[in-house]
């Protein structure tokens, strides 16, 4: 209920200070605190016991959405800012679909995209979205170096990412999208806006004839966390956006991923949700791509 003892708290104002602070602690675990909407749960339940916290709330350079050169979303950008951002190109609209349905208003006022993808909870929306949209994660180290990691290499397993504990996620970014590209995300949970029992994110681009040229499908809510479903991406290629071909592709997705049973849904229902939500979001992605 209450956090275990915490030795120190830092609130840096720059990335450099943040990285210096995280490496300052020789003993124990030093952790970055972003929005805290997941991490604080873990800290309060004492499943996580940092001895030092580096609070990123005041690092201005980590915050904001910028389309000067493609799309760049600072790691400390909150869900509410993504949900209310109206200039997303159709290609990246899934980000908004997901952000406006994360948790609740209070969580969206506080929780961040960077926190979400770095925490990479087993049932979580944003990791699947960055996977389907093939985002690039920029990680900075104390030595001043920055490395870019593609989402598929960044998202490793539930609660595990390619980020080292002494690295900071600067932003998630995308290039300027090709024309006729669209994406969409939707999840299902037992109560409205709950963590995804299944979440589906689809990103597609169309050729001049309106047929699917490239596609990427990601599934949230699996026992192994968010996953790319290659089968679905491959099967969508060539689709004209008709329900039959999309439905066939989503059947492939359901067949290709391993679904599990838990209190909320059994494996077969998860498959059905993958198909149902998959068709719905793919149709929406097509519609957005055509605009």
């Amino acid at each position: 209920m209450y956090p275990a003892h915490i030795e120190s708290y830092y609130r840096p104002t720059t990335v450099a200070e943040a990285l210096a602070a995280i490496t300052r602690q020789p003993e124990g675990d030093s952790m970055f605190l972003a929005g805290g909407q997941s991490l604080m749960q873990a800290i309060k339940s004492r499943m996580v016991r940092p001895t030092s916290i580096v609070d990123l709330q005041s690092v201005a350079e980590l915050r904001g959405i910028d389309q000067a050169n493609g799309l760049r979303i600072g790691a400390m950008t909150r869900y509410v800012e993504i949900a209310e951002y109206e200039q997303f190109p159709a290609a990246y609209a899934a980000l908004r679909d997901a952000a406006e349905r994360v948790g609740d208003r209070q969580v969206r006022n506080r929780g961040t995209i960077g926190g979400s993808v770095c925490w990479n909870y087993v049932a979580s929306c944003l990791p699947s979205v960055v996977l389907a949209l093939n985002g690039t994660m920029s990680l900075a180290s104390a030595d001043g170096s920055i490395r870019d990691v593609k989402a598929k290499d960044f998202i490793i397993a539930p609660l595990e990412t390619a980020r080292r504990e002494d690295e900071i996620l600067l932003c998630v970014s995308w290039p300027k999208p090709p024309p006729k590209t669209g994406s969409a995300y939707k999840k299902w949970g037992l109560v409205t806006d709950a963590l995804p029992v299944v979440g589906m994110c689809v990103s597609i681009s169309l050729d001049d004839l309106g047929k699917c040229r490239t596609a990427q499908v990601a599934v949230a809510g699996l026992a192994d966390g968010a996953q790319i479903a290659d089968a679905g991406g491959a099967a969508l290629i060539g689709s004209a956006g008709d329900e039959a071909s999309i439905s066939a592709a989503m059947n492939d997705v359901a067949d290709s991923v391993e679904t599990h049973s838990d209190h909320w849904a059994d494996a077969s229902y998860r498959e059905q949700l993958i198909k149902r939500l998959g068709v719905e979001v793919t149709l929406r992605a097509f519609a957005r791509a055509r605009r």
Partner: protein
Amino acid sequence: MASNPQKTNDSWMGSRLARKEDLRLVTGQGKYISDIVLPRMLHAVFVRSDRAHAKIVSIDTSAALALPGVVCVVTGDDIVDELRSMPQPVLLPNLPAKYPTFYPLCVGKVKFHGAPVALVIARDKYVAEDAAELVEIEYEELPVVVDPEAALEPGAPLINEDHDDNEIFSMTFTGGTTQAEHDANDKEVEEIFQNADVTIKERFRVHRTGLTPMEPRGVLCDWSDSDGLTAWITTQRPHIDRLAIIDLLDIPADKVRVIAPRDQGGGFGVKAPFFRENVIIAHMARKLGQPVRWIESRYESLMNVGQERDQINYLEVAATQDGKLLALRNRGIADNGTGETGVYWGFVMPFLGAVELPNTYTWDKADVKLRVAVTNKACLTPSRAFGHFPTRFAIERAVDMIAHKIGMEPSDLRRKNLIPHLPYTSTTGEYYDSGDFVQVWDNLMSHIDMAKFREEQQAARSEGRYIGIGFGTGVELSGMASEVLVPMENQPGYGAASVRLDPRGTALVFGGDAPGGQGHETSVAQIVASAFGIEPQDTVTTTGDTATTPFGSGTIGARGASYFMSAVHNACVEIKVKIARILAHDLGISATLDDFEFVDGQVVLRSDRSVKKSFRDIVERIIMHPINMPPGEVGGLEATVYFEAAKPMICFNADFCTVEVDIHSGEFKITKWVSSEDVGNVINPLIVDGQMHGAIVQGLSNTMFEEFIYNDQGQQLTADFENYKIANAADMPDIEVTYSPSPCPHTPLGTRGIGEGRPSSVPGALSNAICDALLPFGIEITELPLRPGAIWKKIQESQA
């Protein structure tokens, strides 16, 4: 504050008065238990078992004790000789059951995941939690029993070792009192089944779910050698808690005062039992001579209380081809959990559930039996719709299944079998005092055009859309008469109130029952204002302090409007009689209460309305200037009245809802919910509407989302709100509450108590609507919760 609506017919009865309580609650000035802080107060944290069934081999508290700020750590062995075990007589129903012996902290073994093993007391609550982590307990695991049917098998591992099996309670509810009478009755029922045109037989299962007040439990105890113990407890029944503490801790009766804080964050039955935590906190406060407070975490709360329902009912119904219900036969099995909770012991709920099985329908005969099994789960705690949520789900579903079988409209079948005239005694012996079921039903049906709905349903189906309508009815107890409560809970059923007028014309009302959000202060004010012709703001109500209030059995079983409010009214009348007597004397006339009217702050002589005196003046005269009094009369205006109705009382409701089901996902949307209520004369419709909305949504949330899940190791996996899912606003429909009242002849104001049992017609109505929508697939729901995945699976199976 809000502008108050006008009173109607010179009375505040029936007015949609905005609540008096709200001013403090919307401004953050409520005083809940966790807001009460005493000097030198210590903080208590329980160390709870992470095993479901295990011997305690050893407990090492040394590391915890060594932590700076820790005052003490106690275990079961430390306190077993210092206080009495439960059960004590005050906490025992007069029902034949095997009551387990237990202590506030586990002694020897743990019987469920979450059982209290040790208690840490520290000067700081954070430190107390640090120390709790350091208590090392070594267990030796014992075989775990989580299935009630398995628990009843011969040779099942024994949970309460002072007994020879796991059956805590069993009873036959029909046919008489002797075995021979039961056998004869059962034979007659069997004959009806043999000869019936149509029968159904199903296993109806309702999962473990219940209520979770937003405020968890809490206890704060203070001890002084001169005044003894003062215990603030989140409780619906402070007077019972007081007696229990006196007996368990052997404290002289003059030295125990229990206070239910004025503001409590909901109860719903969950705060009605007497809990083991109360005893140990009181004991430690006495021992340490220092205030000790325990505030339950949500985690503890979900592990320990609010778990109810959890029954299997093997129900059979026999009927004629033209839809006359003939007989029912039920073999109920309830999962009691450990049985370690005072007053109810788990089984009292399924006991009442079995009694209420026949519901609103007439039956020629019934054969109803119940067995209750002890398992390695938390003991059942009462939750609104006490015990009958599962039995009502079963009966309401069974009625629809009969209707489907004979091709009759379920609504027609219901109307045909509604108890036509009251009073009536049900086949299980429950007395239904008054009301008009048919009128309430017809009022409900006036809100739906069935023929039109069936046309729309047909049209929708042709488009691949599946809409449906479902009905449910419910009888609930309107308070509990002593005649019912003495056998069931060993407590009186009467309502009690003290009304005291102060010299400035203000009414002070004292009640022993402790509310948790039902708006007692407002309802009382309306009754008092109506009685004395004063304004509602001129009444102040105090509840829940045993030092100042008359004895009351608690805010339980919808006894507010039936018993407590009746006592308030009668106390007012008693005072008015005295006022009238003295006023007549002062006026030099011969007059009694009937000759006066109390209105607009005046006491007016009806026969000559120019003869009047202000209420405040006459009150002040009687209290402050008791000279020139009628012979034998003394001053002062106060009355304490106990109210017991001539008969046990009920209230009644009927619901319908419409749904649309997506057959490709099993998801459904509730498109309409309408209720029809007979709650007698309504004191405040705004409050009653709110009670109904809340109860119906609790029923829906229980039916659709909430479930306490134990795995086969007895691990309770739903100890937070991420996993124990409660309906949020976006999940729930709007609700239309309508009234078809018949005044209760047994209460002075014609009021009925409402709300306790109200969630119980919900699971049947909703399931019936879904089955109605899915009639082309022939789906009959027999199990809760109603998860989309399960519905989708049934659709798949029907198509296979």
